[in-house]
């Protein structure tokens, strides 16, 4: 290499191990800084679930459970799942916006793994799920929600819900890579999210539903996570729902993760 021979290179780029992990974490930090710098981006995981809780509890609580307090106990563990799952949509929308800006060209021109910018965004957005869970618990406690199990189970519920949202967010990343514009990402994501989150026993017991809907509720991955969350927060059977939740989380990451990275590579 005759070009470099005369230049003073202070040995900058010695190979270091775990490149993909380090690069992804550096990019996750970037996402985090961006989120914290514009907190209005967190409205969908703070104010929106609070509105949902208020509407459902006071509108339907009496009719479904006989009392608003009983209904809140049933609803909150499920709303937590809905909120975090919806929260993942922003990752896809933001990536779609980002990728059209010059800064992604810079990332692509750097010697880093092609998946690092995507992993970074998904990891950075974990903060959104944490914020969602914390604000729901805080508001729920003000309204009278109480954990009926123990602290450890409650923590496990939070972790499981966050893990599931993280895994499913890879599907939104894929949509973000394929769609032409951010609005389209949102449209497609909403179409998928309604049957996933409302086709559950979140706001009413499945027993009251017609057969076809009950069959969907039974196989819907989100139902399993809601069941697990209720079991861990209120007591009752947890092993089955938790295993199903973990199974679906793994499926989503393994299927949508590689597809999203492939779509990112192909996008120019």
């Amino acid at each position, binding site marked *: *290499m*005759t*070009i*470099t021979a*005369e*230049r003073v*290179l*202070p040995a*900058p*780029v*010695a*190979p*270091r191990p775990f*490149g993909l992990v*380090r*690069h992804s974490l*550096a*990019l996750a*930090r*970037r996402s985090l*800084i*961006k989120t914290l*710098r*514009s907190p209005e981006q967190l409205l969908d995981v703070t104010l929106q679930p609070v509105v949902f809780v208020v509407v459902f509890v006071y509108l339907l609580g009496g009719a479904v459970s006989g009392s608003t307090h009983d209904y809140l106990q049933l609803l909150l563990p499920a709303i937590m799942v809905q909120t975090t799952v919806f929260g993942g949509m922003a990752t896809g929308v933001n990536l779609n916006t980002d990728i059209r*800006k*010059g*800064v992604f*060209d*810079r*990332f*692509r*021109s*750097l*010697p*880093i793994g092609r998946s*690092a910018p995507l992993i970074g965004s998904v990891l950075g957005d974990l903060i959104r799920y944490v914020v969602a869970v914390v604000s729901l618990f805080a508001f729920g406690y003000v309204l009278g929600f109480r954990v009926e199990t123990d602290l450890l189970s409650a923590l496990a519920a939070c972790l499981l819900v966050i893990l599931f949202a993280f895994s499913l967010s890879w599907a939104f990343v894929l949509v973000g890579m394929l769609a032409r514009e951010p609005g389209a990402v949102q449209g497609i994501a909403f179409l998928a999210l309604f049957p996933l989150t409302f086709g559950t026993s979140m706001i009413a017991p499945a027993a009251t539903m017609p057969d076809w809907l009950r069959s969907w509720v039974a196989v819907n991955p989100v139902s399993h996570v809601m069941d697990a969350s209720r079991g861990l927060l209120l007591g009752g059977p947890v092993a089955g729902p938790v295993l199903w939740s973990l199974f679906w989380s793994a499926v989503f990451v393994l299927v949508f993760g590689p597809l999203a990275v492939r779509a990112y590579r192909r996008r*120019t």
Partner: protein
Amino acid sequence: MEHAFEAEGLVKRYGKTTALAGIDLAARPGTVLGVLGPNGAGKTTAVRILATLLRPDGGRATVGGLDVVRHAARVRRMIGLTGQYASVDEDLTGTQNLVLIGQLLNLRTAEAKVRAAELLAEFDLTEAAGRPAKTYSGGMRRRLDLAASLVGRPDVIYLDEPTTGLDPAKRDDIWNQVRSLVADGATVLLTTQYLEEADALADEISVIDHGRVIAHGTPASLKAVVGGQTILVRPADPARLADAAGVLAAVSGHQPESPSRGVVTVPVDGDAAFTEVVKRLDLLGIGVTELSLRLPSLDEVFFSLTGQHTERAEEVAA
């Protein structure tokens, strides 16, 4: 190795549109190649291929002897890219932007911080280092963008229209930075729409249009083809345009042109002609509102090379 980067017969199509129709570009180590052309000529496409962001449909390109498609990862270690629009993260501060790039280039965080501070000082951004880039002026963003492409001390630097939209003082800042990069041994590919910029910085210039190189040479040889400098006269009294044209014809020995209403221009060989024109205009009592000696515009370069105006100029005229 003779060339720091080299493109041979690059072809790129988007559907039915041919962005590059077999383009050759090359620069020896430590030199600046100016790529001069109008919007849509294929400048950015060529840069994106050389920067591993796009795959060519035909032809090949190498950087440091390595193929940009087959050895993309190794090529990326040698290059720095500054896009047409400033490609910095607006929400991050100047320091955060540069530290992030350093970390992605495998510097340890402490080293990345040192390098960021160094570059911010060099580009006169130390005071703004802690502010988000969205609060920066256009010139500051361009400087930060250029700094970001230099974090890894690349051998080859692509500057895609680095001064478009900047005022002359800020443009001079960027020019000086480019000169010091080259003095340090880097090879630069600079795209531009201004002959003046290519003339000021480039060792060789490739003029491209419709995805082809239509002329290549040193600035001096190119100017010899297109006419070195041009005198422009705008008489205060439009009725005396013909008289002014007569003066220009007599001094230069060329037929003057009237590129826009009320103005005549003629290419000249040296500065002496200018003094002569001033003398004769004065003698004939022709008052002027504009009188200048300048390098040909891109449109004039195209006109002398191809006999056609650039498409953009035609649209403006239409």
